[in-house]
């Protein structure tokens, strides 16, 4: 028993830096999931397609000798366009947001294959943004932690500022109450398209960073990313809360860091990797079911109109 614990602990600790680097990169996907789900009340699945889209775009560009930072910008723009399409499909044709997301991610799979021309592409040995980390040897996890951390901090500060500006407050209002937002002169279309586009841009950025981190792009790299992101988001929200802009924006980062450490711990303890998705799915289900279980019998009550 003691031996099992100590071997688990040793292999877990050895993985901590790598996992931390990975979680800081994937925090952007979690952010890309949080913004539609929480801020816009637009349950969105585009990230499952936008993440590999970002990876494929960045992979192809870097393989062609483009500056890695520029490759990230290109990936970001492609992700933004993908998100805009999802929002547009929903708004223009009144198709459910989830179905619009499924349509988009299915179509993106083909597009991603077309972009790369094959199902995976190695960019091993070419330059990456992680080579520019100060003070550390390129290629080590520390470099990735520093670069992803810097970008993450910048994104956090920028979003925390934006959502408190007049425009940002208006965007949050669209998520909180679209009818009221419209009656207050806010264009639901502009806010929704812009917001979902922004979210997918983050997912694509994450993909572009991941490709540079792991040295290859793969069309299947997005498989299950959404449910991982949701699990991370829920952990983050359980820890830091979600009732202020600051907390809501912090949740994806905290959640991503803790979630991937937990995954790493499970793997170190000998959990077979194929079981991971089942475990994650059950975890998300449990988190979603918790409020209903707490209430006791009978499931969800009829929606309360308002308090008096």
């Amino acid at each position, binding site marked *: 028993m003691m031996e099992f614990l100590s071997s688990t602990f040793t292999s877990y600790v050895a993985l901590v830096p790598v996992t931390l680097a990975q979680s800081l990169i994937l925090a952007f996907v979690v952010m890309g999931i949080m913004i539609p789900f929480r801020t816009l009340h637009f349950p969105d699945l585009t990230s499952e397609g936008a993440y590999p889209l970002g990876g494929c775009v960045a992979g192809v560009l870097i393989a062609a000798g483009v500056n890695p930072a520029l490759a990230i910008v290109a990936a970001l723009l492609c992700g933004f366009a993908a998100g805009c399409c999802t929002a547009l499909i929903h708004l223009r044709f009144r198709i459910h947001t989830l179905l619009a997301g499924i349509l988009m991610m299915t179509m993106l799979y083909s597009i991603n294959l077309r972009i790369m021309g094959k199902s995976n592409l190695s960019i091993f040995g070419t330059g990456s943004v992680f080579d520019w980390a100060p003070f550390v040897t390129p290629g080590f996890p520390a470099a990735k932690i520093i670069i992803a951390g810097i970008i993450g901090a910048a994104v956090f500060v920028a979003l925390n500022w934006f959502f408190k500006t007049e425009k940002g407050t208006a965007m949050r209002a669209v998520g909180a109450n679209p009818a009221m937002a419209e009656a207050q002169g806010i264009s639901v279309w502009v806010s929704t398209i812009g917001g979902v586009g922004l979210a997918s841009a983050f997912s694509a950025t994450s993909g572009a960073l991941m490709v540079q981190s792991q040295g290859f792009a793969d069309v299947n790299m997005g498989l299950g990313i959404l449910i991982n992101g949701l699990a991370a988001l829920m952990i983050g929200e359980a820890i830091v809360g979600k009732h202020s802009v600051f907390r809501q924006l912090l949740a994806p980062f905290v959640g991503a860091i803790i979630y991937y450490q937990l995954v790493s711990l499970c793997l170190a303890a000998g959990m077979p990797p194929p079981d991971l998705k089942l475990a994650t799915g059950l975890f998300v289900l449990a988190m979603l079911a918790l409020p209903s279980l707490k209430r006791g019998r009978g499931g969800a009550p009829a929606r309360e109109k308002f*308090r008096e």
Partner: protein
Amino acid sequence: MLEIRSARKTFYKGQPDEKVALDDLSLTLQTGEFGVVIGSNGAGKSTMLNAVSGAMPLDRGQILINGDDVTNTPVHKRAMRIARVFQDPMLGTAASMTVAENMLLAELRSKSRTFARGLNAKRLSDYKERLSILGLGLENRLDTRVELLSGGQRQSLSLIMAVGGSPDLLLLDEHTAALDPRTADLVMGATVRAVDALKLTTLMVTHNMQHAVDYGHRVIMLDAGKVKLEIGGEEKAGVTVAKLIDHFSVKSDAMLLGA
């Protein structure tokens, strides 16, 4: 000034349950006038209000505000000129946002939103002052999420949000109907004070005949998508609840006879 010119709206057109909600309805409200709309369920009151706010496109006819044709202007652009208080307190406010944030959204209704910080110190003190008029203590709860307020508090907040910035037209959609009598009086009192003080052109829909008698310059009774009766000026001062209800009963008698 609000002008509705031969507005027509048919629901379920061409189907067996076709319903004419607005039947070439025309109505003019002068600048600064306070019109009170009454009528039985299905008379077209809500459809008319939705047509004016832009939430429901007309089949035919025109809506003009201060002489400008806004018939094809989308809701969010009309909001530059129109403020609205809904019947359901849930609808008029953003529940998950704070009192101050809701006030900010309302203040920006007729302005273009910028990348400047929304809630600055000047705005916060202004909101404090405007909310203190209500006497509900909302001025000390600027950072409270609106979902934690009672229905009456939310509706009072909606009202303050709507009258701020002196809209060209104020639409009140049975805005006291969901409140208990005491709170309803409180909200109604605040409404009348604000409308009088700011000389707002106001269109109020109500089922409360006493309110129709007590408030406003003109009573407009709708029936089957048309203006059935208008009582204004001197005559309005002499009207009683009983007289108004008479007009309702005439209609139901007619229905009985017609049946």
